[in-house]
């Protein structure tokens, strides 16, 4: 059997998951201009929320997914409200905010591990019931199809939000010049709060989808964060289109890279790509 069709499917799936993480990350970066490292652990919050409500409590899966997405959003909003906003008010530098977000990452990850143990868990009920589709000569699962559709819908939704609504105009104005945005009457802190909610909810969805696709563990956030950040940087940090493009480029390079060599090289390849970009096009594909 030819391996190429499956390789293409794998590239698209990997790219889609990275894109989900990068979308929320970029949205938040665009508004705040700092690297919110806690973004990764928010994905884990989403995944574990679904695990708790669907598997531990036995609630309806769809309901659990909605709750998981909302909880992730609320977690992100809470982080901004109780950690980042007070720091911003004290004129903390972006470096301080980055360190604070690293602290939040570690703390939330530890809480998850305490509540749910560090063991790897799956979200899907029984793998056998997953429907599998064949496209050309590749195989794609139902979950993976849902991942693809989510990415398409969320990207389209975000673009509509940013370019067609008044809220979106305010967000873009703030990304351009926060001080001027303020003096023309935009309440930037309130906008940032909402951006944290939206971006974190998307991260939560990413964590949930990864949970259904492979599984969850408390440390899952780090891997997702790193890939999402690499995708953002190579695409052009803060740029919505850039994040999606970077994500698929990353998925492509990673999966093509391991075509002939062992899969353990994936992360090394991802970082090699990052370094190439940092050296030769540090602002990414989209930003000049």
């Amino acid at each position: 059997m030819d391996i190429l069709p499956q390789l293409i499917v794998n590239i698209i799936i990997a790219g889609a998951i990275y894109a989900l993480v990068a979308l929320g990350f970029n949205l938040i970066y665009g508004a705040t201009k700092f690297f919110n490292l806690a973004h990764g652990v928010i994905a884990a919050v989403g995944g574990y929320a679904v695990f708790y409500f669907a598997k531990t409590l036995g609630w309806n899966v769809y309901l659990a997914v909605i709750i998981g997405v909302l909880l992730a959003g609320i977690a992100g909003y809470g982080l901004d409200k109780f950690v980042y906003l007070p720091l911003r008010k004290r004129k903390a530098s972006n470096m301080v905010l980055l360190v604070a977000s690293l602290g939040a990452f570690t703390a939330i990850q530890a809480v998850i591990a305490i509540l749910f143990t560090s063991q790897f868990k799956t979200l899907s009920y029984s793998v056998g019931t997953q429907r599998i589709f064949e496209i050309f000569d590749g195989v794609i699962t139902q979950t993976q199809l849902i991942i693809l559709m989510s990415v398409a819908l969320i990207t389209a939704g975000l673009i509509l939000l940013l370019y067609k609504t008044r809220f979106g105009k305010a967000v873009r104005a703030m990304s351009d010049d926060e001080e001027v945005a303020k003096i023309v009457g935009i309440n930037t802190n309130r906008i940032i709060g909402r951006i944290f909610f939206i971006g974190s909810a998307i991260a939560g969805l990413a964590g949930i989808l990864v949970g259904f696709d492979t599984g969850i563990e408390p440390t899952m956030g780090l891997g997702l964060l790193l890939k999402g950040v690499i995708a953002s940087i190579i695409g052009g940090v803060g740029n919505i289109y850039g994040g999606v493009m970077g994500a698929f480029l990353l998925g492509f390079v990673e999966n093509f890279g391991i075509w002939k060599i062992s899969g353990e090289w994936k992360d090394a390849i991802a970082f090699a790509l990052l370094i190439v970009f940092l050296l030769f096009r540090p602002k990414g594909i989209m930003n000049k």
Partner: protein
Amino acid sequence: MNALEIKKLVKHFDGVYAVDNLSLAIEKGKIAAVIGPNGSGKTTLINLISGIVPIDSGVVIINGVGARAIKPYNVPAYGITRTFQEVRLFNQMTVIDNILVVLTERNVFGALFEKHSAHHLKRVEEVLIKVGLWEKRSALAQSLSYGQRKLLEIGRALAMDSEVFLLDEPFAGLFPEMLKIMVAAVKDLRASGKTVVLIEHNMDLIRELADHVVVLDSGKLLAEGKSEEVLSRPEVMEAYLGE
């Protein structure tokens, strides 16, 4: 009646007193020019009134309401708007969006996911026609020429519908065609009863436009009064020429 009053305003930057115990009153519906040599504290004065830099001490009284600390996002609520010496636009946005973004009804939660309504679009059209940028409405702000950028910035200020306009060298570097548009815009503001604080170096423009002149030197008030009278004082000319 005074639109704007400041009392004993002080601002220093490590040792340099940019604004030094300055008291002023600016009458409503008039154009007041603020002049003075480079570094005399003109921009800092506007920065203090618009909350861009925090006040060390003193009070700003806007339409009779006193404030010791001004938060930038409260500035529109005080009825104040400003432009910048180095033009500041929303560069990644189109010309039309640069204006639309300030027309949002504030503090209305319901407006979050709405599109702009017809009266906003009408207002944008008015403003952009006035500053001569209607043809350029779909261009990105960053693609505009220097003069067009200045005009877009004043357009954004006009759209704010404020009572007091703080304009930091709006005419600097403009070619005659655009200068004319800018002068007309400033005159229109006075004609509609608005108050303008105008930082300007060009004496001819000051004579043409200003009702009142304030002269700063090293952050202190050197002179103030009717423009003809102040501009004829020898010490004022000396402050300008003697640096």
